[in-house]
């Protein structure tokens, strides 16, 4: 039976294993037919930044094309696509104040700007809320 999982993320990209685990959860949930809402708080608002780009790796002696550095904005775009394919919904809300203080307000199509009222709404409409606190 399809349910809605609401997730709050806090970690910025490239800093914590929580990020990959969170995306694994989202991908699995979408594949199972669940709907996902994400409230990206604090550093997690950088996950969707449009200007992320890959780079070469001089330690491994790879070019940018060879390295294929993962970009978290592509994870988000990928999940929007997966949800469409599976006929479920995927909603990503970036906390607006967090976006402003980090200057990370440019993103590809999909994520939206919001704040605590949106989190409150997502919490009330979800079957389950999972808070993933920042790692330390």
């Amino acid at each position: 039976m399809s349910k809605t999982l609401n997730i709050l993320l806090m970690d910025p990209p490239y800093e914590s294993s929580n990020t990959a685990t969170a995306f694994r959860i989202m991908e699995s949930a979408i594949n199972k037919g669940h709907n996902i809402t994400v409230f990206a708080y604090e550093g997690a608002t950088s996950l969707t930044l449009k200007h992320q780009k890959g780079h070469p790796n001089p330690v491994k002696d790879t070019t940018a094309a060879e390295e294929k550095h993962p970009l978290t904005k592509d994870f988000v775009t990928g999940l929007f696509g997966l949800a469409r394919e599976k006929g479920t919904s995927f909603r990503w809300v970036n906390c607006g104040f967090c976006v402003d203080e980090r200057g990370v307000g440019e993103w590809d199509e999909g994520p939206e700007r919001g704040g605590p009222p949106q989190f409150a709404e997502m919490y009330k409409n979800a079957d389950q809320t999972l808070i993933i606190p920042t790692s330390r």
Partner: protein
Amino acid sequence: MSKVLNIIDTAYRAHLEEQDDTSMWLIHAINNAGVENQSILLTGNAVNYAVKTQKPKALNFGSGKIPYPNKLHEDLQAMSKKGIKLFFLAGDVKDRGISQGDLIGEVEGIDRSSLADFVDDFDHIWRW
């Protein structure tokens, strides 16, 4: 209405440049947005947030500033006024040599021996 327990167990993280503890800020903000019936349990080093003598100073980095570092005990008191109940884990206070008299009056101590029953009273447990 669902009861939410917010466990805060890490203190003094990013609070200077944010001029807020970001977890406490969000708990307060969603309370204002209608997520009522919330409580906070301070554990670990976060029990120090209830100490009433905290006095952070403004900081300058050349022309860059942190002008209004927040007094976390006052933030807790403001949340208490909005109906958010405040608790602390008594053993974590004692371990750190803090006495009850050092704490704001709005927080209530919970013994570790009662923790299982305490958390079970809540529908949602959010750890920050």
